[in-house]
């Protein structure tokens, strides 16, 4: 190419390649290839408790453990199960989408509650004297009540504490 103020075709092509590579390289370096929704954790993997202090914090962790346990048993995500348990409509959508009936759901939620009691005991949030009868209780409760325990873990734990606490005190008096 000749002439004043003119660009050679080769220069134009090279310039285009460089400009494109610089742009794409800069965006990739800034995290462009990983800008997507965060991946959710596998519910079957243990989720360590973060040293809860108040009853509210314990209830929070208890709910999450219970959801993880139930979701693991059902082979769904913890998030999908949480959305299902919030309302009857959510449960209907869940049943339709995953083909999981009430019987399977009840079994899984009971297993989830047992895992939550285990985790709470392991974290030192529940004493073994409360955990043992609590574990027995949740193994046999009906579905609606089990769901209520997950949704309102704070009341559940408060009731358990007020009901089983005096018995624990009594037992502790007789222990060496």
């Amino acid at each position, binding site marked *: 190419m000749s002439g004043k103020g003119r660009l050679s075709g080769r220069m*134009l092509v090279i310039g285009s390649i460089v400009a494109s590579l610089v742009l794409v390289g800069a965006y990739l370096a800034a995290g462009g290839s990983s800008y*997507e929704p965060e991946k*959710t954790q596998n519910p079957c993997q243990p989720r360590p408790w973060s040293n809860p202090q108040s009853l509210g914090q314990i209830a929070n962790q208890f709910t999450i453990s219970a959801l993880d346990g139930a979701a693991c048993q059902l082979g769904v995500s913890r998030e999908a199960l949480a*959305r299902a348990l919030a309302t009857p409509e*959510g449960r209907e959508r869940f049943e339709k989408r995953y083909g999981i009936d009430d019987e399977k759901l009840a079994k899984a939620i009971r297993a989830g509650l047992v895992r939550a009691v285990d985790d709470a005991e392991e974290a030192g949030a529940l004493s073994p004297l409360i955990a043992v009868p609590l574990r027995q209780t949740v193994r046999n409760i009906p579905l609606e009540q089990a769901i209520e325990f997950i949704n309102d873990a704070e009341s559940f734990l408060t009731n358990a504490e007020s009901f089983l606490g005096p018995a624990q005190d009594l037992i502790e008096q007789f222990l060496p």
Partner: protein
Amino acid sequence: METSARPRVAALALAVGLVLADSSIVVLALPEIYRELDTSISGVTWVLISFNLVIALAAVPAALVARKVGPGRTAAVGLAVFAGAGLACGLADELSTLIAARCVQALGGAAAVTAALELLPATVGSERRAATVWAAAGATGAALGPAVGGLLTELVSWQSIFLIQVPVALIAAVPILAVAKHEAATGIIEAEVRRTGRPHLWANLALAMVSAAIAAALFLLVLLLIEGWRLSPIEAALVVSVMPLAAILGSRMTERVADERSRAAAGAILVSGGLAGLAFLPKATIALTLPPQILVGIGLSLVLSALTETALGGRAPQAIHGGWTISSRHAGVVIGLLALTPIFTAEIDQQRHDAINAGTAVVLDSPINPLLKLDLAEKVSAQLETEKGKVPTIEPAFEPKPSDPGERAEVEQLQGELQDQLDRGATHAFSTSFILAALLGLIALFPIGLSRRVDL
């Protein structure tokens, strides 16, 4: 040029600009149309596909008709049909009616544009000057299209985009009517009568591929901005106006490089580079869309002008070969939309699912009361279920906000985090389509490479 010819040149340029701008004007209205007509993204894409498909199929036959019955009459009838169908589009209350009217509108548009190409050389005095006027009119239409479309959609309605075309088309038809009357009275057809040569295969093929990539760039970007990032049509119009503005910059570069093949190759590379940039956006921020848009804009200006010149160069009559270029470009748009729409609608669905899960995880892991968080998680899910097939909005799930200031602050923070997950999902949903569009632009390099060696 004679003074008496000026209104006719202006009318012809207006007709070309109006028809060729139609796609870019309508793109901004598509999100509004699919909300109002309660359809899906795939469904509403046909408002665009149908128009481009009919123009692609009708451009060359329309050019032949114009040469046979007279370009004045063809252009006048074409504009009248375009106006009438535009009115039908504006009054349509169902998607099927709108699409049918768009097909008729495209028929009229194809007739008007190709007949204008036939009339212009006689009106302005040379084929070269005619091609310049024609290209400038198309570029101006494309440049103004997004801004006008966004403005009308937001300030008036999506229907106004079609309704406003009615008087504009009729105004353009008035000076052309004189030519039509002259043709009817004298039987003289103003176009030169020459034997039609074969179309330039490689240049037209490359045009189709590049047009597919460019259409995808505009269409996907508008959807990302309006549906993904929740911008208003005016805001989105302002953002995407960067592309035609950059194209004007690119047209100056066009004058400085004579080699058509190099310009076409550089343009295709820039279009692909810009599209790849849009595929790898590191954040949902408007500013980050600007550099890729500048590359696409400069690129499209270089590649479209170079390929059009190659396709028309030394071929006569220009109207027929211009018809082939219109046909190739619009066929490319159709191919791009048909190929990419199912991919990105499936991606939107997957990303919606991932974003809901990621958002629910954010809610569950937050320190707010479990009762409140589970209720929120369900409301979010229900809200997103109602928007199946669309990029979701999250605000309604967080209304009404808790009255307690502490809880309210926590919920608002949660909404922000959840929105971030949705932004990530919405942005990522378009990535694959942008990459594929970029590949289309790169594949166009093959016919561009062959365009000089094998002149078919």
